[in-house]
Every structure is written in C-alpha cells, then in structure tokens.
C-alpha cells in the first residue's frame, strides 16, 4: 500500500471518527463534563497555590529592600569598572539592576540663599526599586533630577507641593583639594521628589554622580568644563642592571623573590675593558652582570618597577653598582633618526663618570639629552613622537665637552657595556621603533643590539650623530606610552597616567524577581564578593511554596489517578457501546489502527472540550474567589497549557492504548453480535 493511500486512509479514519463523535453529542458532552471536572479540580489547586505564594511574596515585597543585594569587593581586582560591570550584569539572571555605590558629600543651595551642608549624595538609575517603592524614581539616566530626603528639603525650604508644581532648582556643589588649593564645581539640578526619611541624603542620576567622581579623582569633565588635576606619573622602569663581584646565591630567603623580582645573569666575556671603573675594583673575570626584572615581566604591561636604584643594594645585600635600564629605542630628533639609550644610575656612579652636574642625567626633569655626535649646538632639540606631537629635549653638553666629562668616552662605554650584555640578546632582530607596540619582554629579547652597536660604531666612524643619551626614565616612559600605560599630556608637558574609568568597590543590585536573589547571591559569592541580602526570607518563601507544591502535587496525582480510572471506565463503556460500529467497520476492511483512531479522536475531542470548559470556569473562579472567599486564585498561561497537555496525555494516549489493544483483539463477528471486547 502506497504512502499516499495510507495517508488518505488515515485521514478517512479521522473524519469518520470525528463525525461519529460529533453526531453523538450527548455522549460526547457527557464525557467532556467528566473531563471538565477533573481539569477544573487541578486548575483550582494550581490557582490557589499560586495565589497563596503570591500573597506571601507580596508581604515580603512590602519592604523596599526586599530585592536588594548589597555587595562589597573584597579585594582590588574585584572593583567594578565599566566593562566588568557590564560583564557582571550579563552573568546575573533576569534583568537585574546594578547601582554602584557612588557617594559624595556635597552642599546643596538655592538662589534664595537657603542651604544644606554635608548632604550625602548617592547614585540612582531609572527604575531604582528603592526609589520606585517611594514613587520617587528618576525618569531618565541623563536627567537633572534630584531626590532629597525630607530633612534636607526642610533645610532648603522645599515643600512637597512645590515639587509637584514646579520642581525647584537646586545647585549642587562638590569640592576637591588640589595642590594649588581647593576647587569647587557646581551643577544645577531640579528636585523631582522628596523622600520621607530622617537622614541627610539625596539621590542624583548616576551619570552626574560619575562626573562628580571623575572630578574628585582629579580628572577633567569637559562636558561641564570642570578642570583636571594632572601630575607626572611615577617613574618606573622595566629592569635594572647590576654589576657585582659576588654572584647571587638564591636560597630559602630569596629576597628578590619576596619582592616579586627575578634576576637573570648576563654572561660576559669581553676582555680589555676596565670594568673596575664601573664596579669599583672589579676585574673583568670577577664581574657578574645581572638583569633584574619583575617576575611578571613579559606577562603584564604593569610589570614596571618603581623603586630607587639604591634599593637594589639592600635587596641583594651587596654593594653593587646598579643602573636603571630600558631597551634603547629609535627616535626622531631634529628630523634625524637617533638611537636613544637611557643612562641613569645611582648618584655615586654618575658623579664618577660625569664631572659636570649638568651632565648627570638623574633628576626631576627627564626631558634632557646628550648628543655625542651632533654637529648642531642648539640647546634644545625637538623629538617628534609617532602621533606627530613634538617634545623639546634640552641638550646638556656638546660633543666637545664629552671627552672631558668622562674617563671613558660615553659611546665607548655604551659600546663596551652593550657588548658585555650582548649575551642576553640572542635574537638579533630590528630594534623596536619609538612607540612601537612590542611588549617589553619581546623588546628585550628581540632588540638588535648587535645591529645597533654596528650602526652606532659605523655612525661614529662616519661622524654621524646617531646616538642620543637620555635619562633611563624617558626611554621607559616612551615604552610605557607604546604599551598604553602612560600618555604624554602636552598641557602639562609630562607623561601622565591615562584617564581611567571609575571603579566601584561596593553597590546595590536589585533582582528582577524575588527568586533571583538566591542565584545572584550565589553568583556574587562565587566571584568573591561579600554579599548581604534577604536570602532568609526568600528561602522561607520558597520553602512555603515547596510545601504547597508538594501538597498540590499529591492532590493532583490523586485527581489524575482518579481521573485516569474514570476515563478508562468511560472509554471502555464507549468502546463497548461502539463495538457494533467497530465490528461493522472492521468487516468492511478497517484496520486496527483505524479502530485506534476511532477512539483516539474521540478522546482528543473529549479532552479538548473538557479542558476548554474547565479553563473558562477557572478564569471565572479567579475573579469570583477573592470576592466570595477572600482567597487569591492566580493563573499563568502556562498553567492552562500544562493542564491541556496532561489532559491530552491522560485521556488520549493512556486510554487510546487500551482502545488499540482492544481493537487488535476484537473479533468483528463477536463485536457485531454484541460480544464483549476481549
């Protein structure tokens, strides 16, 4: 039999079953009534349970902080910035609202002279459940709304009626202590609501509070014309070079390790250089050169060290000679490419080699340069940065002065020293250009010292001014700038830390629904935050709901069991009463699956009709029960869907299986003769 024939036949069975059921309406509706009773019972149980739980939930939600979860970052890395806040919100269930704790003491004043001092302002956002509970939530994140407590309102002479009518203007003043004195900034806002609270507090939109925070942290707020408080970033270096007679021995008390440092020995094998002039009385074969870096070097762009070079002696417990060290870079000075090498060390060393105090590169001003080969005698030269920004460097000494300043010629010293440390740099690639994006470690490893050395020597031989000696912190600063950890602020003429978005160490999270509190609590605890919330109440509610669920489930199971028994009996009766018809159809050639469909379709119709009536009655009950008995009876669409599915499963599949089983064993002749279904 072809598939088409089969499907036609199946459709014919369905049509015959439908007509047979529909044309015997009395039986159909009688059976549907039984189903109505069963479905209605289950629906009422579900509705009443949900009503009770919702009543309990409503009692909890009477508190404005019911869905509030207070969190605290237990260490620095957990502080939230803009991106981590977004990531946190996305990791939390539902549409949780996060409000970082941005608190600022401010002065509020009005044009009539009334004033409220030391008001604690906090950030809020639209939909802030706490303020919404008091009908005081702000409308827009960028609005100029201010919500104040009744105490503050009284000081400012603002009444509720005034707020409702015209939203009075208030000036918020925030103060910052700068080096040059106190700076005050003002923002005009309008009072949108008054909270009945006895504390001196107010709520501003988070965007405005962020601006106050930026200002307080020394940042400029251009949109409001508030100035910044910039200062040079602290000097820091990628590494230090030490020259010592006694090799380091790292035992249990590795003080370098305790400070988060590591030392890499640089093998030297250069004869003929008077290293004693560097390391005191050391002979070349006694000399040990170490490069000291952070243990995080190469892994983190923040692995710069900022302690004084003299501390190396304390750390290594030696009387070592130490230099600040950053890889040389290429720089464009006065339109010519120079190799810029940083030379800074301890004062004792510098005094030894640079008689002239002016030639000593230690000091507060890093923008100084020695150009040993330059023909020009200008006192200033211009360094062009990759973004085109010019920096002026002050020339300290002319080439003619260099010889008299040092017992070793500077270039020769650099030459020798770099030859000495050449063993460190096995990969002789191109030297990184100024402001390149190469990380420090890679720069170290790949810098082309040999090339640079050759280049330098060639340049020297050709009397070409290619070498620029600057303070080591300048080279380090350029490197940090290329890594994005420093920026050159032309306004203040310094390398400064880039403006960072605000970070928050504590705040509030509002769960969208009460049940989410537990999940959010667990998630925050997992992330390492300290959390306080109304977990106990929610757990109590869930326990209550769980008990009711269990009760409802038991009752439902009883109802379903009774229902199934009833339905089976009903369908047995239907099958018995219809067996003559079934027998006739079987004799005509109807297959057992036709008999199955004959009962199955009828079961479907009964279940759907019963469910429809029950749903209508349940909806009516949901309105009538609170009015008649004071009990809430609440439904969700899913309840009706679930009951429908249950009804279909119970009535159709369960019962139809029996029908199918009976149909396959039905003797048509016995059936027609009124025999029993075997």
């Amino acid at each position, binding site marked *: *039999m072809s598939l088409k*024939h089969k499907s*036609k*036949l199946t459709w*014919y069975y369905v049509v*015959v079953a439908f*007509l*047979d059921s529909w*044309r*015997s309406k009395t039986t159909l509706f009688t059976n549907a009534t039984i189903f109505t009773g069963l479905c209605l019972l289950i629906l009422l149980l579900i509705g009443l349970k949900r009503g009770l739980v919702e009543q309990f939930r409503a009692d909890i939600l009477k508190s404005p902080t019911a869905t509030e979860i207070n969190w605290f970052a237990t260490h620095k890395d957990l502080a939230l910035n803009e991106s981590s806040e977004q990531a946190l919100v996305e990791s939390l269930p539902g549409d949780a609202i996060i409000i970082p704790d941005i608190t600022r003491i401010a002065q509020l004043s009005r044009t009539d002279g009334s004033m409220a001092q030391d008001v604690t302002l906090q950030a809020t956002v639209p939909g802030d459940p706490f303020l919404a509970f008091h009908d005081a939530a702000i409308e827009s994140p960028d609005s100029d709304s201010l919500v104040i407590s009744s105490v503050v309102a009284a000081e400012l002479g603002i009444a509720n009626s005034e707020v409702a009518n015209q939203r009075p203007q208030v000036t918020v003043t925030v103060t910052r202590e700068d080096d040059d004195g106190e700076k005050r900034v003002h923002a005009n806002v309008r009072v949108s609501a008054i909270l009945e609270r006895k504390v001196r507090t107010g709520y501003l939109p988070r965007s405005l509070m962020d601006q106050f925070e930026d200002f307080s942290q020394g940042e400029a707020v251009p949109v409001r014309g508030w100035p910044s408080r910039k200062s040079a970033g602290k000097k820091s270096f990628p590494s230090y070079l030490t020259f010592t007679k006694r090799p380091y021995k790292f035992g249990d008390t590795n003080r370098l390790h305790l400070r988060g440092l590591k030392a890499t020995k640089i093998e030297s094998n250069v004869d003929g250089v008077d290293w004693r002039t560097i390391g005191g009385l050391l002979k070349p074969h006694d000399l040990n050169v170490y490069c000291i870096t952070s243990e995080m070097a190469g892994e983190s762009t923040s692995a710069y060290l900022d302690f004084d070079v003299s501390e190396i002696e304390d750390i290594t417990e030696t009387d070592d000679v130490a230099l600040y060290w950053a890889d040389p870079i290429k720089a464009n000075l006065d339109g010519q490419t120079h190799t810029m090498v940083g030379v800074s060390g301890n004062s004792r060393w510098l005094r030894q080699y640079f008689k002239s105090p002016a030639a000593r590169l230690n000091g507060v001003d890093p923008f100084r340069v020695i150009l040993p080969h330059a023909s020009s005698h200008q006192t200033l030269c211009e360094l062009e940065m990759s973004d085109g920004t010019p920096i002026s460097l002050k020339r300290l000494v002319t080439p003619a002065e260099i010889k008299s300043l040092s017992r070793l010629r500077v270039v020769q010293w650099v030459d020798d020293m770099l030859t000495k440390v050449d063993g460190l740099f096995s990969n002789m690639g191109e030297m990184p250009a100024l402001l390149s994006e190469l990380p420090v470690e890679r720069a170290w490893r790949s810098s082309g010292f040999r090339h640079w050395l050759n280049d330098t020597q060639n340049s020297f031989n050709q009397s070409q001014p290619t070498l620029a000696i600057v303070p080591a912190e300048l080279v380090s600063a350029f490197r940090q700038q290329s890594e994005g950890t420093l920026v050159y602020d032309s306004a203040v003429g310094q390398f400064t830390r880039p403006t960072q978005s605000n970070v928050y160490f504590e705040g509030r999270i509002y769960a969208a629904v009460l049940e989410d509190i537990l999940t959010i609590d667990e998630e925050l605890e997992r992330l390492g935050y300290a959390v306080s919330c109304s977990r106990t109440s929610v757990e109590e509610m869930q326990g209550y709901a769980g008990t009711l669920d269990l009760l409802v489930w038991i009752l439902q199971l009883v109802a379903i069991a009774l229902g199934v028994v009833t339905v089976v009996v009903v369908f047995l009766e239907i099958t018995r009463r219809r067996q*003559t*018809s079934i027998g*006739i*159809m079987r*004799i*005509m*050639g*109807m*297959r057992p699956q036709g008999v199955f469909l004959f009962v199955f379709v009828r079961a479907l119709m009964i279940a759907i009709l019963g469910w429809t009536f029950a749903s209508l009655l349940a909806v009516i009950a949901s309105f009538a029960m609170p009015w008649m008995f004071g009990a809430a009876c609440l439904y969700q669409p899913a309840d009706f869907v679930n009951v429908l599915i249950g009804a279909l499963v119970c009535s159709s599949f369960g019962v139809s299986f029996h029908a199918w089983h009976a149909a396959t064993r039905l*003797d*048509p*002749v016995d059936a*027609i003769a009124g025999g029993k279904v075997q």
Partner: protein
Amino acid sequence: MSQPDTAIKLTNLRHCFQDRTRRFVLHMPDLSIPAGEWLSVLGPSGCGKSTLQNVLGLVREPHFSDPLARKTIGVDSFVVNERKADSNSGIAQHDVAAMMAAGKAGKRAIANLASRCMGYCLQTGELLPTLTIKENVAMPLRLNGWSARDAERRVDEVLGFLLSAKEYTIHNKLALEISGGQYQRVAFARALVHSPKVVLIDEPTSSLDPPNARRALDLLANEVAHQDTTVIMVTHNESLARDYSDFIVRMDSPEEPWGDAIPLRFREGDGWGTAVRFERKQPAGWQETDSTWQPVSTLTEEPTYVA
C-alpha cells in the same frame, strides 16, 4: 487447487465449540462454490450457518495446522478465486492457507482480499448510525482507496439503482432516520457498491415484511446478475431461498446430532451446478483432552454429493 469457475473452495472445514450443556461439532469435508451463482444456506438456529458464512467471507480466520481445538475453526485448504475486473486478464487464485502461514503480512493480505472481494450484508443491515446513508455506502469504497469524489459518484449510481427517485432525499439522512425497507436496500447497496466477487447476506429480510423482502431481493438479484457475483445467503426463509438460489444447502439441527443432511434441489433446469452437503455429527468415542478434541475417527464418512 480449485477449478477456475469455482469462487471458493475449501476442504475439511471443522468447527468445535463447547458451552455448558453440549459439545457441538461442524464438519464439512469438501465445499466448492461456483462463481456467479446464488447459494442459500438453510438450517435451524445454532447449526453453524453464520460460522460457515464468516469463514467463507474471510471474517473469521480458520486455523490450518492445529488439531481441532475448542472454539476454533480448522480447515485443510482454502482457495478464493478472483476474476479480474477486465474479464480477459483471467483469474487470480488466492491460497488463504498460504496467506495465513505467512504471518502478519499474510493476515494483511487476507484483510485486503476480504475488503476488495467480499461484500457483506449483515443480519439487520447494521449501518453505522452516526453516518449518513451516503457515508455508509461509501465506506467500502473509501476503505479500498477510492477518492471522495469517485466514491460519491459510484454511491449515487448504486443508490439510484436500489432506491426510487422519490427516495433521493434520504441520501443525506442518518441511518436511523430511514424506514426498514430503505435500510435493507441501503445495506445491499453498501454490500455491492465496490463490485465484490462474493456477496454474503445474513438473514437479509428478517426485519421486512414479505413484499418488501421480495422487492429488496429482486433489486439485489438484478444487480448481481450484471456483475457475475457469487451470492451466499444465510436464511430461515425457505420460500425465498427456493425463488432466488441456484443451490440450497440445508444444515442439521443441533438437537439432532445424528440426523442426516439432505441436499435439496428446488429449481429444475440447467442452472444447477454442484451441490454440497453438510454433515454435523457428534461421533461416539470423542475425547476431550485439555483444550482440544481428539481427531474424530468416525468422521471418515465421505460426504454425499448431489450431481
């Protein structure tokens, strides 16, 4: 195998059942039913007429290899010959015994064969009460894969033949809303609508008065005469059997276990073919062991054939 002009042929049909008071055995060594003839089966109630008809109509499935078992029907061989719709393409022989041996697929083939070749008119018509006349008559066609449109055309054709023009309005009535005569004719229509090779009629006129019964059978006889259809009619009405049948078989009364079965001829002329004789005996010495009857040694008596 049966001869091509035989509609149904079976050998050694036996049926045994037991109730509280008696044991009853039906045994028919050989039966050949010629194609295109009208066979009537007469006999008192309970003698096995309907059982015979149900076996012949493939409604009840006989057993082929088991010994005679309680409440089962056994048969040694059973062949149904189906003349193809176009008379030139010959006759298909269906070995029901082989089909039964083929298991589930064979049973399905038997069901298909029954649905295609057999037309049933049950004792009281037995139309489906919740379907209209048209829907009732169309059922055999739809179950045989006819489209709704073709089925309706054929139903109109058959009903037009069996019902008068005045009765056209009943087509869309439910089965319970028509008279007894109409009901019986509609039952005939349903039995004939798919042009079966064999029509089985069980007490067709029991609910009709004699004039209406004859009118209904006249219509049926006219219809089957055009279709070369074999009719097997079970009835108590000897008069009707005489008037419409080519062959009549009288079966014994169960109260007379040793009574002779005498084949009767009621019509003289060339229309007679082979007649059959049923024997129903309860031989002495039968033993019941567990659920089966032992083979009956006394049932070796050959049936008498009437030439």
